[in-house]
């Protein structure tokens, strides 16, 4: 959930940056940094990492819209163009939120922009995995994963977790990935949460789309 929300916020931030560009071009004023940070429930406290940033909030009792404006000092009036920009950014963000263009989990379909973001971020991860899977860099003897597993064949990620007799424990896919790296590839095993391991898992899973999940199957 958190990851999804973050992606949404990133997508929203990108769209607002475009809006701000056009405003500054029209008014010919030095462009202040006005950043859309996201939305959250009015009851939730702000994340602690926002301390020291000058924030502007708009709250309707349910949802808060938060933006940050650099180049302004607390307690001092803002220059008019900056104040306008802060206000319009807040309003646009709020309106966008209320017309639900960005939140797909409130009976509203994903926007094309969201879909593009989802797809490109996912494909990037899968592509990184594909590259690693087809490269001898994980090992020391020239062997790469695809040599025994063309198109990810015989990796059956849908059967994990399962008891692996040879490992004497219930194993996850990543345990077998590491086993292969250490044995046929004669390499050093990857950290469970490393980007490389995550990418390899993403690629292997991507080759089995539509396969029923059958954990424990031998």
């Amino acid at each position, binding site marked *: 959930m958190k990851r999804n929300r973050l992606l949404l916020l990133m997508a929203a931030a990108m769209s607002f940056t475009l809006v701000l560009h056009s405003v500054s071009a029209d008014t010919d004023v030095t462009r202040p940094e006005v950043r859309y940070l996201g939305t959250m429930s009015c009851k939730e406290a702000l994340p602690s990492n926002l301390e020291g940033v000058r924030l502007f909030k708009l709250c309707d009792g349910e949802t808060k819209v938060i933006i940050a404006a650099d180049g302004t000092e607390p307690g001092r009036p803002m220059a008019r163009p900056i104040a306008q920009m802060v206000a319009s950014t807040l309003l646009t963000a709020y309106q966008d939120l209320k017309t639900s263009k960005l939140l797909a989990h409130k009976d509203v379909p994903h926007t094309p922009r969201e879909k593009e973001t989802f797809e490109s971020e996912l494909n990037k991860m899968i592509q990184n995995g594909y590259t690693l899977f087809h490269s001898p860099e994980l090992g020391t003897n020239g062997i790469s994963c695809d*040599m025994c597993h063309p198109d990810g*064949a015989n990796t059956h990620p849908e059967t994990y977790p399962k008891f692996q007799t040879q490992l004497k424990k219930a194993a996850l896919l990543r345990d077998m990935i590491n086993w292969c790296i250490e044995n046929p590839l004669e390499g050093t095993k990857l950290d469970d949460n490393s980007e490389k391991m995550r990418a390899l898992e993403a690629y292997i899973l991507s080759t089995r789309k539509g396969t029923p999940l059958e954990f424990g199957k031998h």
Partner: protein
Amino acid sequence: MNAGEKTKNTLISRRDFLRVAASTTALGSLGVFNLDAAAHEGVRTPFTFAYVSDAHLYERKLNKRFIRAVEKAVNDMNSLNPQPDFILYGGDLAQLGQPGELELGKELLGQLKAPVKMMVGEHDWYFDMGEKWRELFGKDVYSFDHKRVHFVVLNSVIVEDYWTEPKMTPMERMKFMAQLDNPKGKPFMVGKEQREWLKEDLSKYDRSIPLVVFSHSPLYKYYRPWNFWTEDAEQVQDILWKFDTATVVHGHTHQLLLNQLGKITFHGMLSTAWPWPYPPEGVPKLTIQMDRADPFDQFDGCGDGTLDVMSNGQANITYNLWSRKPRYVTYDDIERLWITHGLGQLEPGPSY
């Protein structure tokens, strides 16, 4: 699939074939058909040849794993008693076509006691277009006779030029070819030049002489995405078709594989290096699939084998699986398999 459709129309049904075969035998016994062949019938001496295939060697300093496997095969071969008449090496001696890899292969195969017949694979070829391989082993396309059986060795890994236009380096060209699941991969061919050579070579022989063809890729269409495939397979089959008995022995697929199209029987060879899973479609119906290999056992699903050529020219193959019981596929078994599939009623599958 167009090729499948085409073959469907031209393939003689099994029943028709048996009818033709029966009438041929009758004509033969009446002395109408080929006196020379009839005169020699029954005097052909059965013999055995062996095979080792798909070693995929890296240079010694990089990888010992695949060397151990070849040494195991060499031990197997040298322990055969009696020794085979010769040993076919089925291609892909090297992994990346490096001179050092091919030289290492030559050194390891040099330990074999029986004579060796070499065949080339794509991993041997696409670094320097076969230059080093030919320097070490001679011609890549040739034929020979042995105990009244005609043997042909093909180079079936010819592909369209994909490297000149994008200005690939030799290593880029090699790696492009070495990736089995390369989505941009080009299909293997025997090619026009070699098909002409084959026609010419075979024109000197009577149809009754048993024919054994060695090719690295299967000479039929099995699974295109992994190049378990020969693009001009039908045209090559048409050339072999005139022979009463033809056996094709191929490498590249690293698995137990059996197919039969009319009079041509196809056997896949095991690899010494690693087994390949069966692809999601296209496995010939006659193939009894090997269960998936145990990844914790380097040698499971790997091995070598022998072929016994009978006095009638048919071949029985023995798969010497290193971590399993051996698998025998006799010509009679194939006949029985056809019966279990419904004699004469087998629908051409995607492997056609």
